[in-house]
């Protein structure tokens, strides 16, 4: 046993501790993909809203709402698809399992605030509080990210804080919801994804 072996052992212990508690394969490219989907979706929503001559008002026009929901659903699918695909690819390249104990913790800790938020927003829609939808999306999503930050790349918490802050600002600036939504889900995702990619993925993972 020499010094180098002891150092290796300590590094090993640290690596095992980290890998058993944190899911480190979240991909920056997935964030960029999700951001682009959100911006495309926001463009269609904006198009729809301005065509309806509505502005962004707290009126429940069933047809409009169901079309917006359709766009939102498509964005969600595309964003999740991009996130999962790039994360799966990164994990495979690292030779790590995609669905291990740490990944399950990330999933559950994301899901609790997200499902709560989703149901909350459905309630808002039911009662016609359309203007509150965008701020609520941002706040609940931000809380989900902060919550999951314990079990994955810590940096994701900063994205969470930014989403929460943006959601609160949006709440005090109602009727600009779509703008803040696009900023939070589009621009912030792309920015975060690019930073993560630059920080962790630019040099191919060992």
């Amino acid at each position, binding site marked *: 046993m020499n010094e180098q072996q002891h150092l290796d052992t300590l590094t090993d212990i640290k690596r095992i501790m980290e890998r058993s*508690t944190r899911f480190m394969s979240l991909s920056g490219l997935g964030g960029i993909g999700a951001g682009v989907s959100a911006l495309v979706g926001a463009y269609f929503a904006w198009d729809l809203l301005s065509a309806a001559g509505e502005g962004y008002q707290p009126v429940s026009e069933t047809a409009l709402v169901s079309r917006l929901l359709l766009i939102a659903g498509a964005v969600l699918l595309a964003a999740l698809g991009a996130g999962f695909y790039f994360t799966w690819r990164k994990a495979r390249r690292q030779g790590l399992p995609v669905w291990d104990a740490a990944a399950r913790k990330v999933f559950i800790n994301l899901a609790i605030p997200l499902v709560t938020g989703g149901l909350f927003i459905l309630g808002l829609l039911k009662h016609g509080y359309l203007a509150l939808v965008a701020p609520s999306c941002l706040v609940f999503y931000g809380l989900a990210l902060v919550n999951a930050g314990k079990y994955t790349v810590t940096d994701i918490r900063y994205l969470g804080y930014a989403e929460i802050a943006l959601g609160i600002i949006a709440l005090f600036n109602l009727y600009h919801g779509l703008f803040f939504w696009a900023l939070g889900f589009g621009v912030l995702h792309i920015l975060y994804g690019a930073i993560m990619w630059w920080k962790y993925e630019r040099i191919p993972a060992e």
Partner: protein
Amino acid sequence: MNPIGNLNKVFESRIRLGVMSVLMVNEEVSFNDLKEMLEVTDGNLASHLGTLEENAYIKVHKGFIGRKTNTTYSITKTGEKAFKGHLAALEAMIKFSQ
């Protein structure tokens, strides 16, 4: 003082040290998760877990999920102390030889 004396013989095995590392930072871990994290075979892991249990470093909880047995493991106070002592000894040795 010769710090080599403080190294724990039980932790000479990388797998046993790995099990302890996982259990230090996770409250309760199942057999299958341990197996996956440490990339070892069933028999190999079981024998190392046996050794750790004999030394009272870990506690075994036998439960059921439906009809399937679900065995989970957690670290004991004794185990935590032993692991920390081993880490301190490793660190001391690195400083010692520098």
